[in-house]
């Protein structure tokens, strides 16, 4: 806080204005897309919007989980890093707000209510084996309707964000208040909130992933899906944390505080979750591949071939890109010590991971079945490139600017010190050694 000179403050506030402008432009463009999609019945802008928001949601959820994991383990090295994550949590309410347009369309979209989540509208067309029927006639929806109906869905979505925002509020309060009075009971409160918060947030993110992403193809189901979203979120959050801390060291804010040992530990966690992501993603594929049941396999089939011709589609290369680019390369790269402790080398791989995380979400959200009565199997698989990518990029940038603005505001508000100076573990954290 002491390094703020007046010129620095003006530079920051002008950057903050730019971020807000970026947020308004990006989200505005995304909303134009949604409006246009609503007019023409085009699903693409909605998928793009969901993709753009999900990236930032996954990062925020990852940060929330990391803080709570640090808290329950009472880890001695983490407080310096934890404080930076706590600022990151300030983006949650804004991310929640960004999901609102999708919910509003589901409620008030009339004949287009089912444009993104087809099951919202019982008259939406769907596929059973290869014949076209409506959602209302589909036994696979009828059996799930007790869970997958708009009222309960809305209630759940609101509950998830109340849980995320509530936990964020309490974790921030416990940490920031301790800066002022130094009462160790704040640490106890933080541990208690985390002990309750881990299962609560784990359930929220699991069912959130089911509701928002898996229900895009409501006939498909995978119990691994929530764990996949958790693993992805942690990977992305670790990448952002590493970038943020290295940036703060370069500006002098965390210089001498965030040391090689902290960076090495974060990089090791990154390696661990790279393996975990691969384990989960592969298990999901492996079980469905082994069981070979059509109502499950179609989900992977449309990510590999064009179902009408049986030839490889563009998604095949995206899938291969994920296996080799999102697992094998970062895994082998992060095995080496020097790649973890040399800041430029680590920055390269965490940016790589973030880019592939974005592709992973794209691969999970975008592919789907467009009902096409003339087609051999009754539908066309959505292609890799399309207007969903363009609209998605607008939303991605817009929501990203909004989150960055909220986080910067939290950093600048003076609500907390740079590091939790009165945390009982702070001395150990500063003296952390490999």
């Amino acid at each position, binding site marked *: 806080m002491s390094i703020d000179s007046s010129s620095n403050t003006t530079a920051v506030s002008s950057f903050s204005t730019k971020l807000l402008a970026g947020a308004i432009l990006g989200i505005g463009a995304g909303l134009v897309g949604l409006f246009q999609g609503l007019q023409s019945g085009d699903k693409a802008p909605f998928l793009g919007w969901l993709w753009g928001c999900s990236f930032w949601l996954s990062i925020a959820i990852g940060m929330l989980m990391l803080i709570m994991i640090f808290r329950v383990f009472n880890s001695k090295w983490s407080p310096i890093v934890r404080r930076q994550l706590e600022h990151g949590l300030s983006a949650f309410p804004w991310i929640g707000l960004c999901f609102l347009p999708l919910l509003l369309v589901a409620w008030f979209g009339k004949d287009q209510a089912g444009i993104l989540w087809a099951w919202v509208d019982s008259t939406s067309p769907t596929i059973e084996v290869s014949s076209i029927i409506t959602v209302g006639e589909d036994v696979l929806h009828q059996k799930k309707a007790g869970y997958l109906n708009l009222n309960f869905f809305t209630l759940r979505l609101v509950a998830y964000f109340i849980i995320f925002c509530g936990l964020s509020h309490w974790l921030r309060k416990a940490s920031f208040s301790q800066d002022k009075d130094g009462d160790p009971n704040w640490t106890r409160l933080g541990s208690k909130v985390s002990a309750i918060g881990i299962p609560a947030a784990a359930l929220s993110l699991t069912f959130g992933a089911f509701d928002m992403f898996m229900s895009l193809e409501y006939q498909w189901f995978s119990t691994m899906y929530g764990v996949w979203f958790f693993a992805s979120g942690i990977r992305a959050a670790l990448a952002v944390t590493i970038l943020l801390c290295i940036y703060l060291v370069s500006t002098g804010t965390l210089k001498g505080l965030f040391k090689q040992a902290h960076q090495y530990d974060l990089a090791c966690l990154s390696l661990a979750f790279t393996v975990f992501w691969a384990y989960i993603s*592969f298990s999901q*594929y*492996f079980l469905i*591949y*082994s069981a*070979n049941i059509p109502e499950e396999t179609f989900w992977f089939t449309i990510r590999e071939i064009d179902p009408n011709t049986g030839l490889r589609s563009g998604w095949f290369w995206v899938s291969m890109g994920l296996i080799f680019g999102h697992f094998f390369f970062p895994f082998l790269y992060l*095995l080496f*010590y020097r790649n973890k402790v040399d800041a430029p080398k680590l920055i390269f791989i965490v940016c790589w991971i973030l880019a592939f995380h974005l592709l992973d979400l794209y691969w999970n959200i975008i592919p789907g079945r467009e009902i096409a009565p003339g087609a051999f199997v009754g539908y066309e698989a959505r292609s890799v490139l399309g207007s969903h990518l363009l609209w998605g990029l607008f939303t991605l940038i817009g929501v990203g600017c909004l989150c960055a603005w909220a986080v910067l505001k939290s950093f600048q508000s003076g609500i907390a010190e740079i590091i939790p100076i009165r945390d009982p573990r702070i001395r150990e954290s500063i003296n952390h*050694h490999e």
Partner: protein
Amino acid sequence: MSDIMDIKYAASATFSSAKGLYDAAGKVKQEGYTNWECFSPIPVHGLDAQMGYARSKVPRFTLTGGITGFFTGMLIVWFMNEYDYPLIVGGKPYFSPIYPFPVFYELTILFAAFGTLFGMFFLNRLPRHNHPVFEHPDFGLTGDDKFMIVIEVDDPKFDDEETVEFLKRVGGESVQLIREPID
């Protein structure tokens, strides 16, 4: 008892503080000694860097073990299911990198663990049942409140008098020659 033979093993010096050991270790390294060791009752952070130790080479054994395991797993599945006794199980191909992947990766982990364990044994020249320093009375104190530096006779720079003088100069308290009995 006079017919017991012994040979010189090393020169040793004790220190009363971790700082004393740490500073002396830096000087020993600077002096150019290569075959020497520090003994301490507690972990001293940064001592390995002070002694000029590079990072452990165990990870290389781990990586080699892991890669060997991965391809051993592949070889097992390929040999059994595609080459020696082709058998269709659950409609899956004879050989594919997908269905037997758990075998590959379990063997990767197993062999990586073997590599780590046996690599560590190899690099530390274990198992070894005795060591001349165990006979040395000062060695027992390094399990209590003393720190110790031992410079071995094998060191090219070792000299009976100079090394002892040097150890005294860098702050060694009890400086002695350790002798290894032979029977």
